[in-house]
């Protein structure tokens, strides 16, 4: 709508689209919930062999070294065909962090298995007592010679029960003031003795995340990333990029199509009151596209986004929820059906999609936290 492909980009788009049509197994298309590793990782590895698993990684680390526009095209084509969400903690989080902050030995050990899809990573940030107030985290890592002893608990850890490694924020100085000055960034082998992992079932019925218990777990000191007590800065260094990628309007556009299909099937599409709400929602998707295109333009021209990225996260995530609210309204009496609804226009996944959408305003910093960030750092309102 706003961004137009250059001829070379259009060619890439067609190439990706054609290849996906030929290579993505039908059983993996249009899944609302991420399939388990046994089903998903072969697809990850297929993408890896094609060389498309890490468009945003530099070539020297096995990535595509793609431009931002090329990355967006691949994201959009994956979304368009209904490709399943891959585990991204390695590709989008620890990978780029290691490239920026790790030693050569750490990079050599950990980056290739992420590209190959032979190791799955989990992010160990949140704790039972440290959610939005992450800096209050208390999982303790005590340095003892050439090793850390880790004791504590992480929670809301996506795919921990399927993961091999965790990158974790741990407290290395309990006395530090401010509190975030006593936090370090540690890589933990989840197969180590003393670790117990318990999956947590969500309201959407899946077990996407888990809690992880550390009972005096030994971690080699060489697994520290960056300097001791410098973990907070490292964890926050790459957040802007992540928030940009989550505001891609492709997902909202697809949600809009689901609403229209459901509304035609249920007949509510003829109701002028519903039409008005559908128009408002559709116009908001246009606004999200404009914001995304604006942010991409700035990023491409080296104008950094910074804390303003919180704004696109708020707008994009709240819009996705609003769209899913419209979806269950369009579904009428079918709203609470557990399985996808069969219609004359194809199957529509209603309840699972709606329930999944409740998480987007919570993870990655809740909407309320994003608003605090905006108020202080963009609007310069007082403390």
């Amino acid at each position, binding site marked *: 709508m*706003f961004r137009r492909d250059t001829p070379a980009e259009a060619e890439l788009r067609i190439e990706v689209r054609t290849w996906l049509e030929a290579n993505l197994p039908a059983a993996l298309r249009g899944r609302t919930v991420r399939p388990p590793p046994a089903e998903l990782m072969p697809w990850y590895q297929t993408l890896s062999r094609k060389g498309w698993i890490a468009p945003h990684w530099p070539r020297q680390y096995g990535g595509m070294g793609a431009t931002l526009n090329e990355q967006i095209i691949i994201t959009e084509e994956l979304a368009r065909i209904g490709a399943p969400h891959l585990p991204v903690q390695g590709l989008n989080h620890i990978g780029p962090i290691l490239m920026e902050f790790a030693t050569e030995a750490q990079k050599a050990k950990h980056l290739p298995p992420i590209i190959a899809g032979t190791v799955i990573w989990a992010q160990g940030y949140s704790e039972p007592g440290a959610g939005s107030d992450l800096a209050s985290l208390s999982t303790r890592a005590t340095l003892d010679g050439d090793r850390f002893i880790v004791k504590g608990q992480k929670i809301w850890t996506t795919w921990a029960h399927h993961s091999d490694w965790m990158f974790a924020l741990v407290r290395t100085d309990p006395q530090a003031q401010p509190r975030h000055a006593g936090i370090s960034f540690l890589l933990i082998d989840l197969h180590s003795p003393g670790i117990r992992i318990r999956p947590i079932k969500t309201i959407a019925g899946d077990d996407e995340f888990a809690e992880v218990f550390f009972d005096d777990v030994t971690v080699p000191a060489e697994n520290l990333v960056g300097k001791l007590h410098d973990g907070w800065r490292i964890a926050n260094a790459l957040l802007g990029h992540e928030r940009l990628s989550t505001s891609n309007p492709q997902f909202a556009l697809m949600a809009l199509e689901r609403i229209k299909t459901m509304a035609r099937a249920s007949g509510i599409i003829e109701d002028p009151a519903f039409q008005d709400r559908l128009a408002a929602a559709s116009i908001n998707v*246009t606004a999200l596209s*404009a914001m995304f295109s604006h942010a991409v333009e700035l990023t491409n021209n080296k104008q950094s986004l910074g804390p*303003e990225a919180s*704004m696109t996260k708020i*707008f994009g995530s709240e819009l996705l929820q609003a769209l899913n609210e419209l979806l269950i309204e369009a579904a009428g009496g079918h709203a609470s059906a557990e399985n996808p609804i069969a219609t004359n226009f194809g199957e529509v996944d209603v309840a699972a999609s709606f329930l999944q959408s409740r998480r987007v305003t919570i993870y990655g910093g809740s909407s309320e936290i994003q608003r605090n960030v*905006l108020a202080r750092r963009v609007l*310069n*309102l007082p*403390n």
Partner: protein
Amino acid sequence: MDLHLTSEQALLRDSAAKFIEASGPKVARGFRAQGSSFAPARLREAGELGWLGILVPDSAAGLGLGLTELALVLQQAGRGLVCEPIEFAAISAAALAQGRTPHPMLEQVIAGAALVVPALQESGYGDDPLAPRTKAMGTDGALRVTGQKVFICADGADGFLVSASGRDGPVLCYVARNASGCALSTTQTVEGRKLATLSLADTPADLIPPHPASRNAVDALHNLALLAVSAELLGVMERALEVTLDYLRIRKQFGKLIGSFQALQHQATNMYVRVEATRSLVFQTAANNDPYCIDPALAVAVKAKASENALAVTEACIQLHGAIGFTDEHDIGLYLKRAMLLSSLFGNAAAQRRRYVEIAGLTA
């Protein structure tokens, strides 16, 4: 988010920002009590700066610039609550310039010596801008229009660009203010500007042919009007939010600056998100469309959102000011009133959404 501008575009924005220093709420307030709703000398000044011919090609003595430049100037006009009808003059000039030979009024309109404004609306709600009830009879050279147009910012106008139904669909006509059968009745609005109803009875008119790039002259001008007013609404809400944030930073209650209260901070961020969504919509649309063929669904979407957001933001500005915001003496109310006027022009948010259902094919 900042805009990505060329250095020429940044200069243009800065010179518009300088121009509005002589406008602002005090000046806008002054026009409420007067017969005229703007200063003709200031319109000529805008003409000298080239803004009234901003979209007009160099060959017709315009600046030959695009929608981004138009939006930059009008955003500033909105910020300054400028009363001079720069937006209507600039988009009318674009229409007057689009034929093989420009309309004779063009030169004076570009200079700000004469004023031509669009007269496209026919009712408060539910207009189909491409199916006007106003009729155009005869052919160019002997064209006559009959009908009624409403909600026109007609103050000081020497002529109008009227949409009418001709034999083969909607046509755009130029009607001189002093033409036979042309009558105006004016109503005061809540702010300095006035709105008028234009009655046309077998009134002679000139046909304004479409630009080669556009499907239809009425459609093109209407879409341009939607974007122009949206850019102005952006400026209005943006400035109103700034004024309000300033107040949150100095006003104390319970021994603290009220801007430190989370309830007010979150309200302010909601307003900020609305302003930013409008900014991205206006400027991404401007950057990706040509003046004479703006994507209609996009124009409608932008005006719907700008209208909704401008009202929501300026309403919240009153709330965050508390009782002082409800006084006539305080300037913040002027932004709400300008938002009330502009958001209703060429169809309010509800009217745009209704059109959007059709244009975007939502039910198809």
